[in-house]
């Protein structure tokens, strides 16, 4: 009798453990689905193909940055400079993609093919990342400080480069943010391709596993022969590159490059990563989790606006959700 009773409790415990493990892994998806269901019931305009694409397109810039910052956070670091780098890349790229009759034409007479602004935006992103990574690995500056510096410096350069919006861009350039292939918005395609590529890199290459090892225990990774400095520089460079890409997408989406673009976007990106289960202590995190986290933020923004909720309340709800997500995460890792 007694034996049977303990057997039953053990079964119960195992069932609980399995449920907990399932919720730990997929709970975030359930929350997203619940939110979509709730908004669909509350607002007529929410669950339409157009609006859903709209959400994904809205999160695409932030999502690109979130993918970069997820890698950075997995190493145990942080990147606060992404929003400013986005702006710097945006003004530099758009200045090379303006129509000759533009009112704010920066370089009259200069006509270059569309790949030039693309390469410039990606390069400027990668260079800022390279600087971050070098400061952090070679000069042992804490990532928080190094990227905080980059946040201010890159914004300053963006404003010096152009203190007014650079608009009236070439159609080729505008396609990046406004075009669609087979009905799928081009920014969404970019986000999916990048997400899949980074997911594969993290899981199927030595470099990817070194990123996790760094956050898991930097000392142990070093003693195991991992080239710590190279991995750090690589990760920050990739994150910078993705910020540059986001600058490209956002400026072509709105049809102008502005030095004030992307203010605060790095915080939304960090929030997306954290909601998606990335641990700020390093070693833990997935790209699909981050994408789900970004979708949660996107759905929340979009749904609450459709319900005519005051913008100020939306920020309060978002802040609360981030804190709750971290509390859940801490309990899981205890």
């Amino acid at each position, binding site marked *: 009798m007694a034996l049977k009773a303990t057997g039953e409790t053990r079964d119960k415990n195992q069932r609980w453990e399995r449920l907990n493990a399932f919720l730990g892994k997929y709970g975030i998806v359930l929350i997203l689905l619940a939110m979509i269901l709730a908004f669909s019931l509350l607002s007529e305009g929410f669950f339409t193909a157009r609006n859903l694409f709209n959400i994904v397109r809205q999160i695409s810039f932030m999502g690109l940055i979130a993918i970069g910052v997820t890698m950075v956070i997995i190493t145990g670091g942080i990147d606060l400079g992404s929003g400013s780098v986005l702006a710097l890349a945006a003004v530099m790229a758009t200045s090379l993609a303006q129509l000759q009759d533009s009112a704010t034409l920066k370089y009259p007479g200069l006509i270059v093919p569309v790949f030039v602004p693309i390469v410039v935006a990606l390069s400027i992103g990668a260079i800022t990342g390279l600087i971050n990574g070098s400061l952090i690995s070679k000069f042992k500056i804490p990532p928080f400080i190094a990227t905080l510096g980059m946040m201010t410096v890159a914004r300053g350069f963006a404003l010096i480069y152009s203190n007014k919006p650079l608009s009236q861009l070439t159609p080729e350039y505008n396609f990046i943010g406004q075009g669609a292939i087979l009905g799928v918005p081009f920014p969404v395609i970019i986000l999916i391709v990048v997400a899949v590529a980074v997911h594969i890199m993290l899981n199927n290459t030595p470099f990817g596993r070194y990123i*996790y090892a760094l956050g898991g225990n930097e000392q142990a990774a070093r003693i195991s022969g991992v080239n710590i400095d190279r991995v750090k520089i690589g990760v920050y460079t990739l994150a910078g590159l993705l910020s540059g890409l986001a600058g490209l997408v956002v400026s072509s989406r709105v049809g102008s490059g502005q030095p004030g673009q992307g203010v605060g976007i790095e915080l939304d990106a960090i929030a997306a990563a954290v909601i998606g289960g990335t641990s700020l*202590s390093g070693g833990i995190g997935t790209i699909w989790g981050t994408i789900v986290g970004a979708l949660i933020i996107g759905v929340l923004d979009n749904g609450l606006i459709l319900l005519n909720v005051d913008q100020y309340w939306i920020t309060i709800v978002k802040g609360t959700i981030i804190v709750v997500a971290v509390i859940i995460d801490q309990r899981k890792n205890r």
Partner: protein
Amino acid sequence: MSEDNVLVMEHISKAFPGVQALSDVRLTVRRGSVHALMGENGAGKSTLMKVLIGMYIPEEGEITFLGKKVKIENTQQALRMGISMIHQELSPEPYMTVAENIFLGREPLGRFGLIDKKKMIANTRALLERLEIDIDPNTVMRSLSVANTQMVEIAKAISYDSSLIIMDEPTSAITEREVAHLFRIIRTLKEKGVAIIYITHKMDEVFQIADDITVFRDGRHIATVPAAETDRNSLIAMMVGRELTNLFPKEDAPIGEVVLAVQGLTRTGIVENVSFELRRGEILGLAGLMGAGRTEVIEGVFGIKPIDAGEITVKGKRVQIKSPRDAIRHGMALLTEDRKLTGIMGVLSVRDNMMIASLSSYSKGGFLNKRIINETCAREKTRLELKTPSMDQVIRLLSGGNQQKVLVSRWLLTVPDILILDEPTRGIDVGAKSEIHRLMSKLAQEGKAIIMISSELPEILGMSDRVLVMHEGRVGGIFDRKDATQETIMRAATGHDELMAV
């Protein structure tokens, strides 16, 4: 029991998970005496002292202090009763001044409950002058030398006007001049009737300053003798006199050519002029007391810390080792001492932890070959009898012994010629321990060269073909298996044998 005793501890027992740290231990300290505690690493000296100041609560035992039976539950209570301690590891508040450190937690208060800084500084100045310590009370702690930091700690312990002061290796960080100073202070304290418990490994000091000596071994009280009635040799015999068991079977392995030669390795102030050779099939034991520089030698050899001088030759070729990567490239592997700090990556999977050092040899065209990785993991799991529900399990959740097996596996997968194992069996259960010993024998037979650091003399004697004994950053002696006994090693480790060995 005479009125003369400041402290009587009886029948003290204290267990930690997996270890009986103290069993039925006693200690009696006379008023105005210096009582030395001696014993190997892990003999139980520090544990007993932590019981005395209330950091640990013993399962059993009685403490009588100043004639009264007492229960000591925390360090504040111990301080109030008149027991203060100078800890082995210095832990000052680095950004506070000397005065603030000494009066931390008992700052003199003035009007409105604010700290009376003038009074605090004046009191500190008076204390330091009385002890003839020449340090300004306003100095910030972190700008002091290690020796001066130690002197401040000593002054702090004395400032409580305690009847009993515990000094845990107080001279490990100070020079001879300061040792003499400390001994003058101790003699003054004795005259005032203060009793001192003095923990040290240094024989010279014991015979200079101690009145009584108590020896511990494996958590037991071995003997208490007046210092005047004993000598070094009998103390060493008491400290090590334990039966050798057959727990450690190094099986015969053919000894081959030299694979690693270290010549004149020096890390200024830490390791001086260390030279040794290591051959295929050989296990070289690295023995020595805590802080003798064993791990520090290995850090230099493996490229974890830069060396200031010295040559390293691997398989006859002179090599430059500037990072662990270089060491691994030259066929070395290092199982570190602190599994948690420098070994496992706690939140990562068993698979990641096992593969991290050899990932590049398991990838093709830049991508990991997951099929071969999974096969390798499965094979390692069977070979090492690793107990884990799956290779995706987070390593933190495995037992210490199983974590250690994963780390052993991590290094074997790099196919090293030279295996360095720093305290490979510390903190793991007896079963896993003997498995690791068996594995070491087998690896030696396969022609690997092994360096094993261990604080357990029986393990050193049982497993090593040769034993290198470190003493204060230098080679205290190198002994062949047939010449190595607990006594010879202990003598070399305490610096008693230096001339003979060189």
